[in-house]
């Protein structure tokens, strides 16, 4: 039956196709088929499978089966400790969202934070303690460790605790109390993505080691040297929110900060900058010196640091910037992502000299992020090598993976008498440790955090731990003879230390604590009164710039999502397209087009790069807008255990492994870094790379990069495709419709318009606010049960994301400009997909939604062919959930689509229905903001507004009159429900 396509459909006359054989003609075939069908129906008529409905024995008071319970907590994805709300359905966390009340992160949450819910359901996580590789009981671990501790109280050998910056105040107190018992006990903090030089510079300038709390909302002029603060630097969610707050242009006078980015690779932050200056990383110190000299001269001082003289390439840019910073003294901000002490000293000086330290570079409030010290870690390495460490405890750090130099830390750890490593998965460090202790997931444990001195937050468990896990603080207290639970320890610490500092005076400790657990955070009185005075002599450490070189420089950078590699086990993040390159499932050697031509490299050629004895073999990616003479490689890849993803994606005869069995996803570039001037440098000079002769496919979700029409199709004036509207602030100040392509002449072939009696849902996306951070992409994936398809399927353009972010390049090579545009189903009023569906599986409803009805869809894919926005996704397979446990993350309110049907953005219709039902239960109309789509909720920049056009008071209704509004491909007459708002850049710094 399957082979005879001309007859199998049964409907309509057969046209073409093979002629039926005279022996068994079409007519008899149909008869037989009909009877067979009837037979099958009867055969299928048995009673259904018995399903059990098992109620609770005693129901927890707050749980209502079928209704989500929300817990306020603190994100554990990185050190930024954003506020989160955990959505629990029927006892299991299924989604993480930003906590709208949180003072720093607001309601937004980055891609990493949202993907944390998937790593909870990971069967590869460690569940039991390991003693020299064998599973054992906690009692045995306690016995071994305390046995070792008694031998250390004499002080012959040291006790060292190595952590990242994640530990909160209670854990730090536990560490301190534990180490106080030993004559030679030390706590070393190290960050894989180190900002050690910032702390060191502030120690030199202010006598206190700290990272300032940067407040981008207070800055009118932002000068960033390689700091990817919207993507991966310190606290990206908070910074994105603040950056957006400083760039609001819809008031009567547009007020927009001016952002200049100096960088070598194309970072997410650079792609959003008003001006982007492409410079090699080894030139940045020279530029900073020149900028300092120019700023000093403007202020009438002689420069405190050597003046390298006019820069041949960027002198105009530096002069403009110095003038802008000087004019906006006290309202500017200089930040630097380089881990180079003299550069950071200049930045600290610039912020001081420009009077920014009271405002945007807040010194009174130190950030808790990346407070590690590379020098202290290097000292620990020496101690370990010298055999002077009796007990080493490592938690929230993986130095054997990311410390510079291949195998240096791994070899050193084995020289400690006893090494104890806390790890969520078997990792590079745990594999050389004597004792490996399972680390709980942040959704399973009690913990706390203090991102800034006047804000403390609590992390609470949303589920019983899957494994026999114990936290660092609990172990330390227990080994010190004070066995307390985490909750008791945290309450005790808060009662003694944080409760007396509470911002609101009233209330007992219990009400203070309950309010904190309920809301997720507590405001405290600021701790440090005075930032101290600036010590000008520190600037003597800033020497002259080194000689200019033309050598090839390798820059190592973290990616949005995976960061330093700690999330390498998370398939959502592995398949999250890089915001700029759009590559998934790999790292690569990114070079500029000119450098590629110089070196004779083509896209996807494998090259061998040999920085300092480490050999990296990576495919080439040609990246417009990158500095010539540089190669950029992402950190966080090549993690142990990522060979688990070789089988991710569907199995079929042409399937290609995402990674070859036994290989890792990408290659580890962290060990290619080197220690320079007391800090881990993020760039190194490398010899000319050699081609291995091989190639490796890079799976990209976007292969069209330009808005400019191909020469053969372009009109004479060469106008770019009007998909994105862009304008400069200067032009926008003159005319609010600047950048608009003018109104299109629209005509309508549909005589009867849709009626929208109750609601009409619509969305707007502000391209000025959107940074392309991709938080919405993961938010959508978590909300709508979007499967992971693997590298091979992505390279066949079969990724399933309902929401993608299109990134377009414009301008020439020297000055590449980037625009990001989230693209999702436009819910067209005259939807091209609807008219071609033969089974009416995609139809319009009376609330403006373009519905996709899975149970009607037969998978003709006509709709996808006819969609001008290319947002429809076809289920080529039943996508396996890579991990059996990963099914537990599925949202029970959204159907899991099966093979052979089409799917696409539904405007989170499950949330619309929930909002309407909640309003009905409360006997009130649906209010604006009751329904938030997952993308809107997650957006740190609040670029997305969703609402009801029938409600004249809704935000979306009010935005309709905004002159920046435009619709993509409006001229085709599809009448989309999604409106975009012109991207405005403050290129001239002409701020109103």
């Amino acid at each position, binding site marked *: 039956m399957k082979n005879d396509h001309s007859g199998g459909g049964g409907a309509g006359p057969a046209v073409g196709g093979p002629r039926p054989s005279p*022996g*068994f003609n079409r007519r*008899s075939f149909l*008869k*037989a088929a*009909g*009877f*067979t069908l*009837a*037979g099958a*129906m*009867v055969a*299928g*008529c048995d*009673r*259904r499978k*018995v*399903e*059990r*409905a*098992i*109620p*609770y*024995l*005693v*129901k927890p008071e707050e749980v*209502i*089966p*079928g*209704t989500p319970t929300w817990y306020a907590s603190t994100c554990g994805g990185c050190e930024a400790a954003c506020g989160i709300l955990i959505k629990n359905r029927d006892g299991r966390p299924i989604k993480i969202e930003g906590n709208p009340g949180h003072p720093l992160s607001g309601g937004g949450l980055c891609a990493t934070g949202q993907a944390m819910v998937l790593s909870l359901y990971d069967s590869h996580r460690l569940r039991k303690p390991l003693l020299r590789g064998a599973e054992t009981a906690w009692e045995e671990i306690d016995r071994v460790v305390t046995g070792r501790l008694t031998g250390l109280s004499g002080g012959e050998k040291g006790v060292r605790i190595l952590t990242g910056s994640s530990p909160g105040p209670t854990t730090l107190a536990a560490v301190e109390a534990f180490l106080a018992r030993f004559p030679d006990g030390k706590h070393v903090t190290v960050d894989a993505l180190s900002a050690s030089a910032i702390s060191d510079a502030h120690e030199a300038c202010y006598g206190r080691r700290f990272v300032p709390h940067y407040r981008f909302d207070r800055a009118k002029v932002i000068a960033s040297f390689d700091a990817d603060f919207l993507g991966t630097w310190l606290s990206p969610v908070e910074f994105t929110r603040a950056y957006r707050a400083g760039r609001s242009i819809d008031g009567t006078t547009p007020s927009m900060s001016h952002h200049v980015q100096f960088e070598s690779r194309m970072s997410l932050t650079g792609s959003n900058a008003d001006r982007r200056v492409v410079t090699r990383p080894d030139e940045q110190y020279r530029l900073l010196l020149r900028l300092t000299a120019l700023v000093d001269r403007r202020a009438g001082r002689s420069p405190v640091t050597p003046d390298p003289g006019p820069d041949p390439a960027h002198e105009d840019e530096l002069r403009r910037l110095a003038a802008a910073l000087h004019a906006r003294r006290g309202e500017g901000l200089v930040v630097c992502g380089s881990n180079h002490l003299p550069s950071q000293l200049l930045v600290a000086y610039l912020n001081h000299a420009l009077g920014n330290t009271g405002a945007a570079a807040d010194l009174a409030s130190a950030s808790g992020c990346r407070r590690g010290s590379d020098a202290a870690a290097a000292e620990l390495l020496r101690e370990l090598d010298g055999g002077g460490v009796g007990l080493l405890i490592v938690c929230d750090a993986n130095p054997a993976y990311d410390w510079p130099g291949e195998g240096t830390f791994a070899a050193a750890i084995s020289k400690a008498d006893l090494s104890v490593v806390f790890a969520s998965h078997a990792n590079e460090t745990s594999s050389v440790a004597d004792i490996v202790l399972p680390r709980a997931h942040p959704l399973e444990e009690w913990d706390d955090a203090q991102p800034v001195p006047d804000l403390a937050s609590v992390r609470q468990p949303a589920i019983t731990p899957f494994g026999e896990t114990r936290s660092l603080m609990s172990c330390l207290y227990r080994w010190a003879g004070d066995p307390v639970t985490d909750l008791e320890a945290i309450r005790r610490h808060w009662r003694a230390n944080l409760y007396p500092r509470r911002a609101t005076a009233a209330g007992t400790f219990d009400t203070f604590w309950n309010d904190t657990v309920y809301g997720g955070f507590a405001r405290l009185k600021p701790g440090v009164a005075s930032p101290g005075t600036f010590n000008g002599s520190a600037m003597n450490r800033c020497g002259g710039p080194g000689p200019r070189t033309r050598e090839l420089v390798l820059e190592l950078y973290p990616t949005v999502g995976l960061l330093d590699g700690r999330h390498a086990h998370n398939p959502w993040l592995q398949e999250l397209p890089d915001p700029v390159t759009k590559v998934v499932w790999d790292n690569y050697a990114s070079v500029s087009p000119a450098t590629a031509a110089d070196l004779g490299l083509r896209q996807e050629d494998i090259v061998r790069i040999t920085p300092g004895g480490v050999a990296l073999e990576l495919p080439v990616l040609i990246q417009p807008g990158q500095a010539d003479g540089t190669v950029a490689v992402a950190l966080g890849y090549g993690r142990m255990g990522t060979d688990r993803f070789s089988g991710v994606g569907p199995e079929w005869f042409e399937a290609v492994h995402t990674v070859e069995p036994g290989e890792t996803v990408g290659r580890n570039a962290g060990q290619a870094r080197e220690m320079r001037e007391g800090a881990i440098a993020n760039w190194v000079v490398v010899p000319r790379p050699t081609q291995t002769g091989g190639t490796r496919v890079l799976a990209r979700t976007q292969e069209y990069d330009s808005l400019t029409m191909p020469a053969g199709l372009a009109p004479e004036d060469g106008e770019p495709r009007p998909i994105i509207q862009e304008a400069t602030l200067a032009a926008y100040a003159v005319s609010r419709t600047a950048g608009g392509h003018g109104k299109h002449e629209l005509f309508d072939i549909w005589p009867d318009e849709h009626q929208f009696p*109750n609601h009409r849902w619509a969305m707007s996306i502000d391209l000025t606010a959107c940074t392309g951070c991709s938080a919405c992409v993961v938010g959508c994936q978590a909300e709508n049960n979007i499967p992971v398809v693997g590298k091979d399927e992505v390279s066949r353009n079969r990724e399933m994301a309902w929401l993608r972010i299109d990134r377009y390049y414009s301008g020439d090579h020297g000055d590449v400009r980037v625009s990001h545009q989230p693209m999702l189903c436009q819910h067209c009023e005259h939807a091209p997909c609807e008219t071609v569906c033969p089974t009416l599986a995609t*139809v319009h*409803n*009376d*609330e403006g*939604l373009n*519905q996709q*009805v*899975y*149970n*009607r869809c037969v998978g003709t894919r006509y709709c996808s062919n006819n969609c001008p926005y290319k947002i429809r996704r076809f289920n080529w397979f039943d996508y396996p959930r890579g991990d059996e446990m990963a099914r537990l993350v599925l949202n029970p*309110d*959204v*159907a*899991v689509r099966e093979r052979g049907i089409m799917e696409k953005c*539904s405007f989170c*219709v*499950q949330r*619309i*229905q929930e909002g309407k*039902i909640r309003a*009905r*239960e409360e*006997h009130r109309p649906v209010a604006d903001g009751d329904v938030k789509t997952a993308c809107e909720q997650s957006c740190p920049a609040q670029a997305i507004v969703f609402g009801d056009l029938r409600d004249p008071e809704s935000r979306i209704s009010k935005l309709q009159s905004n002159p920046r509004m435009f619709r993509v491909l409006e001229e085709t007459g599809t009448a989309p429900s999604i409106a975009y708002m012109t991207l405005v850049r403050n290129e001239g710094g002409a701020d109103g």
Partner: protein
Amino acid sequence: MNNRLLGIFLGTGLLFCLTIFLTSYANNVRLPGNDEGYEPVQPVAYSHRLHAGELGLACLHCHSDAGRSRNAGIPTLQTCMDCHKFVTAPILDIRAEDERATAAKEKPRRIVSAELRKLYAAAGLDDDLRPVQPDGTGAGAQSIGWVRVHALPDFVYFNHGAHVSAGVECQTCHGAIETMERVRQVSDLSMGWCVNCHRGANATGVGGSAVAAPTDCAGCHY
């Protein structure tokens, strides 16, 4: 050859048709997925007729989530025990034992009915309602696995709360539950049945007040 093959097909088809025709009289056979009349035996012979009909307990007394959640909720064992820690057997049995004890001039024994014994066993209690495992952990308690009667396919999202708060009576969909000894599915729960009711409700309102019952696909399918 051709005619013979056709004959076999037609003959088989005829046989199937005949089977459908006959069994539809005998056993009320319906299309696949239509479970109208499903009346499974439950692990405990709980009587809705007694509780909801004779005793007049409100539906929401036990199915307390029906007004506020997607699921109506099956009462927890604790809900049952709220009453059944006192009521251990049908009242007639207890009265009979009282009369017997009075006649025999002895203290009446505790009467535990066979069905309630299953309930107590599930709660980890013996006939005297003392924990079987006296360690106080509640070990031995095992929730009752009721057999689900009303089930919709996975691509349909039904919300009890929306219907109850709109004033729809439970009996509109579930039938006269208060007369059923064992719960039976009285409606076919098909899409046509749902949509007809929604259309009617939009035309006439529910309980005198106007409602906006969705009739578009995305009302239930997403």
